[in-house]
């Protein structure tokens, strides 16, 4: 359908008329995203009586806005207390939390809000205008390409573990093996489930993340009076200037936001890939191209901006296969599809013909959601950062209580709370003895995806490994991967030559 300016403006204003749905959805979404264990999919499911009772248009804008907002919300606890609210925010802890420890929590929050909303806006606008082109990405990125893309994330394990490679590799490979618990991708044969049916589908990611980050961090936090006193600096008198500073820091890195949001967008388009993959890959790429890679993990702004922009680029991307082909790309879009089918609306390419205002309205709603998000959450950075000065005697019990129930929420199994506790103790042991929980988590998150895609690719080729090098895009990605591995050494050589030349 071709739109002239008047029609486009009319569409925009029509969607804007639903501000009374979008704003509350955004606020609920941010809250949901900030609570580990809750995400858009299970929130929509829990609110099913509400969404089914709404008119289809209201229901659709509600779900889309909530979905986008959860990605932003997940970064808040990741930065302030090292507890990612959603899987996509796990990478944000790597540099976000060190910033909070240094007393830069407010700046970090402001920066992440700008990166998140800008990343989401860019991805939403790109999706709106480039949907037919973006939908073609799925025709080129298959199992082989996904294996290579995820190997970029795996490389991050080595980068994180740089100071003690053997320990880092043990943590990473341990995580990869833990990720292999459960039914295999081909025969659904259960592996290493300890006899528990609840592990048949694999380790549930949310309880594992809650344990490794939230509970282990809480067990460590009790050694300090407040969170940011670990390095002696805390912003007891947080002021608005710090929010402005965070906005400026994000603004100065606008190009970084743009290209990392596209990483999220592209990975979001691939069915089955999710925000956690996108954020780790973006972090790794950001680190790779940085002039100061050694600063990553110490509270480096780019180390926070990259995963936040990518994490929020995933949301619009994941709606591309649904709107372009009619096939949901992830759990949330699948739930949205079912909810609307119940109301007689079928999300998919036909919607652009039958109800174009609704179809295009999906993307306009995303754009508006991100704009409203920025306006509502940015003033909150000042207040939210005060969490870092709350006494741990109160903060720790609250963190543990909410995250334990958050572990229960996704599958409603008490067993998952036990998983969270077990991984909490494991995470504590790791932190105390110098093993990186981030490396462990990367393995747990990426391991199943890599195995699934690798086994699928080998199944297609009847076991011939050559399939891994059979596509042009795949080979380009392999070349990039090799370059990534060689880059630190190449840099070293270049510096050495430059130093020798200077000396001469």
């Amino acid at each position, binding site marked *: 359908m071709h739109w002239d300016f008047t029609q486009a403006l009319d569409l925009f204003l029509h969607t804007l008329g639903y501000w009374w749905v979008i704003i509350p959805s955004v606020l*609920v979404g941010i*809250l*949901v995203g900030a*609570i580990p264990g*809750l995400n858009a999919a299970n*929130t929509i499911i*829990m*609110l099913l009586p509400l969404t089914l009772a709404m008119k289809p248009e209201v229901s659709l804008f509600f779900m889309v806005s909530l979905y986008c907002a959860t990605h932003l919300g997940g970064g808040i606890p990741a930065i302030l207390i090292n507890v990612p609210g959603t899987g996509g925010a796990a990478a944000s802890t790597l540099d976000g939390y060190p910033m909070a420890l240094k007393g830069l929590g407010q700046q970090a929050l402001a920066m992440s809000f700008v990166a998140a909303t800008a990343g989401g806006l860019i991805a939403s606008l790109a999706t709106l205008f480039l949907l037919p082109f973006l939908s073609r990405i799925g025709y080129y990125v298959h199992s082989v390409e996904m294996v290579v893309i995820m190997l970029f994330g795996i490389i991050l394990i080595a980068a994180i573990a740089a100071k003690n490679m*053997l*320990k880092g*590799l*043990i*943590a990473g*490979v*341990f995580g*990869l*093996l*833990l990720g*292999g*618990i459960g039914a295999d991708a*081909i*025969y659904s*044969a*259960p*592996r*290493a*489930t300890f006899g528990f049916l609840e592990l048949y589908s694999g380790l549930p990611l949310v309880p594992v993340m809650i344990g490794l980050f939230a509970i282990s961090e*809480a*067990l460590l936090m*009790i*050694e300090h009076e407040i969170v940011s006193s670990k390095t002696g600096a805390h912003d007891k008198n947080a002021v608005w200037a710090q929010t402005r500073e965070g906005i400026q820091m994000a603004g100065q890195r606008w190009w970084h936001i743009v290209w990392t949001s596209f990483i999220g967008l592209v990975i979001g388009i691939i069915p089955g890939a999710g925000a956690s993959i996108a954020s780790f890959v973006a972090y790794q790429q950001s680190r790779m191209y940085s002039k100061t890679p050694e600063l990553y993990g110490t509270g480096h702004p780019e180390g926070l901006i990259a995963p936040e922009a990518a994490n929020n680029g995933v949301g619009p991307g994941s709606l591309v296969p649904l709107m372009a082909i009619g096939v949901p790309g992830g759990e949330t879009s699948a739930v949205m599809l079912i909810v609307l089918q119940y109301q007689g609306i079928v999300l998919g390419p036909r919607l652009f013909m039958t109800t174009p205002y609704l179809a295009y309205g999906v993307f306009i709603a995303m754009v508006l959601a991100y704009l409203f998000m920025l306006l509502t959450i940015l003033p909150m950075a000042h207040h939210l950062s005060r969490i870092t000065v709350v006494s741990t*005697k*109160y903060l*720790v*019990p*609250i963190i*543990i*209580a909410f995250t*334990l*129930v958050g572990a*229960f*929420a996704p599958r*409603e199994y*008490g067993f998952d*709370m036990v998983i969270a*506790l077990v991984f*909490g*103790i*494991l995470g504590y*042991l*790791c932190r*105390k*003895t110098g*093993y990186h929980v981030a490396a462990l988590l990367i393995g747990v998150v990426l391991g199943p995806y890599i*195995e699934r895609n*690798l*086994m699928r690719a*080998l*199944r297609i080729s009847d*076991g011939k490994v050559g399939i891994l090098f059979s596509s042009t895009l795949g080979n380009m990605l392999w070349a990039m991967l090799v370059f990534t591995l060689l880059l630190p050494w190449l840099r070293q050589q270049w510096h050495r030559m430059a130093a020798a030349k200077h000396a001469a």
Partner: protein
Amino acid sequence: MDQPDSKNKRPAGGDLIVPLLAGSFAIYYISTVWDLPWEASASGMFLGSLLLLLVALFVLRTGHSLYRGTVSLSLRRLIEPRQFQGRRLGLIALMIAFIAVIPYLGFTLTMFSFLLLAMLVLGVRSVPRLIGVAAITALVGYALFIALLNTPFPHGPVEALLGSIF
């Protein structure tokens, strides 16, 4: 950073715990995939073997350092600072109790009890604060999880009471 003990040896006993857990898990994993078709067992065999190799290297490295006298098997790094261990174990015990009793007491009452006892363990002694923070937080949890989001947590006497009022 590690403080050397009296004989200037770095305490490395705690460092062996995670590798030993990892190695044990690797052996268990391999045992469960041993007779599965290759598609179901290949990655587990590869990763399990790699993990055992890494663990073996780590143990050898630690053994070599032990032999040279640069490390000891002390668990000091893990258990210090000692003054927090009691609180830590208390929190873990409370978490176990939380999981065990929530099906019977329900979400709100369990949360209230856990918060109150956990703050007590961590050293809060002001009774108004203990009860106030625990009660308000538990009610916020009720409002968010039960009333707003309708999360199907176990219901207990408090949920039944609040449900009949509202």
